[in-house]
């Protein structure tokens, strides 16, 4: 096992930072809640000193800025009790391997995509679905996205696991962003806002150009809705036209102080330093995929 981990580049990872952090993660909760018996001997000393960690220098080449927004699924789950640093690293290795076989292009919520899926019951053994991406969720190998379309006046949504071996091809027909992180309000909007023709031609995006933001403001249908959208601070919808009491209630349940709760933000997100570490590794992984592809091309020619 140790040899296998070493081949994956775990030696340096395991030796210092990883061990320190994983140990910290286990013992942190009780770090300040020692029992009286345990600390009895320290009572005789005049002063106790807290433990500090020294920051260590980075070794690998830096990733291009903004990579974390392009591939957010490589970031680990920020929920602390879901973290397992070895599992995260192994999952990322699997993700590079899958991407080498089935490339997944850059896409965002709001992009129009087409997914070709293996389907043993279909006539051509494949099933192609086109739709607008309304959500990107989860982390690591379980990362998924949801496409929405309206076919024959029937709203349809399909959630695809990005790294599922059943996926044969992922195309991005229109690379664009929307004003919101999730577009579930399209369920409550008229069909025209989520209708995409299946024969839509792909428009190629020039590499390096900024991704355009689609500033369409959706007009929602009348209530009842799937959610209380007036409480969500949506930017991509028109005025909801609700009576004043709805907004008053929304104000009452809002939590504006959370914006300034620095420790809450710190605990519920991956901190910038760790993000950089992961993204540097991801950039190296992508370079490796590219090298492998070039090698195969050479061998073929």
């Amino acid at each position, binding site marked *: 096992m140790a040899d296998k981990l070493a081949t994956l580049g775990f030696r340096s990872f395991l030796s210092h930072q990883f061990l320190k952090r994983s140990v*910290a*993660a286990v013992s*942190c909760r009780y770090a300040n809640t020692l029992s009286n018996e345990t600390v009895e001997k320290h*009572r005789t000393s005049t002063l106790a000193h*807290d433990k500090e*960690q020294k920051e260590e220098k980075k070794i690998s080449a830096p990733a291009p800025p903004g990579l974390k927004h392009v591939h957010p699924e490589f970031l680990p789950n920020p929920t602390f*009790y879901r973290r397992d640093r070895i599992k995260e690293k192994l999952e990322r290795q699997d993700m590079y391997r899958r991407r080498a076989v089935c490339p997944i292009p850059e896409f965002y919520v709001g992009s129009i995509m087409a997914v070709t899926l293996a389907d043993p019951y279909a006539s051509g053994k494949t099933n192609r679905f086109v739709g607008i991406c309304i959500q990107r969720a989860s982390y690591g190998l379980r990362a998924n996205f949801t496409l929405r379309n309206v076919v024959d006046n029937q709203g349809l949504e399909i959630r695809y696991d990005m790294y599922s071996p059943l996926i044969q091809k992922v195309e991005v027909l229109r690379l664009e962003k929307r004003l919101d992180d999730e577009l579930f309000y399209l369920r409550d909007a008229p069909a025209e806002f989520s209708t995409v023709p299946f024969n839509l031609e792909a428009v190629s995006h020039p590499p390096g150009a900024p991704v355009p933001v689609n500033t369409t403001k959706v007009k929602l249908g009348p209530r009842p809705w799937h959610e209380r959208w007036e409480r969500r601070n949506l930017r991509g919808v028109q005025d909801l036209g609700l009576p004043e009491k709805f907004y008053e209630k929304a104000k009452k349940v809002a*939590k504006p102080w959370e914006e300034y709760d*620095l420790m809450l933000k*710190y605990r519920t997100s991956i901190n910038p330093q760790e993000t950089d570490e992961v993204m540097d590794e991801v950039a190296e992984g992508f370079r490796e995929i590219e090298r492998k592809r070039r090698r195969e091309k050479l061998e073929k020619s």
Partner: protein
Amino acid sequence: MLRFGIRNRPRRLSKAMGRKEDGHGTGPPGRLERMTIIVNSLVRHERIEGSHQYMDEARGYTERLLQIAAQGDKNHEAMDVANYWLKDKDLIHKLFKVLVPRYENYTTCATRMWTLPVEYPGGKNKTSILELKGNPWPPVVPNPRNNSKSLINVLLHNAKKDYRSASKDGTPV
């Protein structure tokens, strides 16, 4: 990234959350209000003393404030956060012009915490000192006295030296 161990969950600090007469509200916003008061006084006085749990919670907020402020006073986010956390506006200048340059080259955290000794029989609550590193106050732990020149130490040192040189020669001491 914080350079000291933090608890995975925040403390609830029930006292802070239920006392309107103290001038801050109840619940989570009241807790945050209480934290701003502690952070404010820490940035002003650079060394404060108080209940251990309040100091420990405020330590994280102070560290994060300093890390975000390191982006500079031209940064919108940094200025916004500093404006919220420092109620005395003269401290914003101190934060960006004094503290941020001070901790620029630090590889450890910017704060230090000391737990004060418990006197018998002691209570449930510990008292702690929270300080910013590089403060102008005398150190909490005085420098240890240099005893190397005391007579006994000089004699012992020389005896050790003699013993080593003798054992190297092979002659019995």
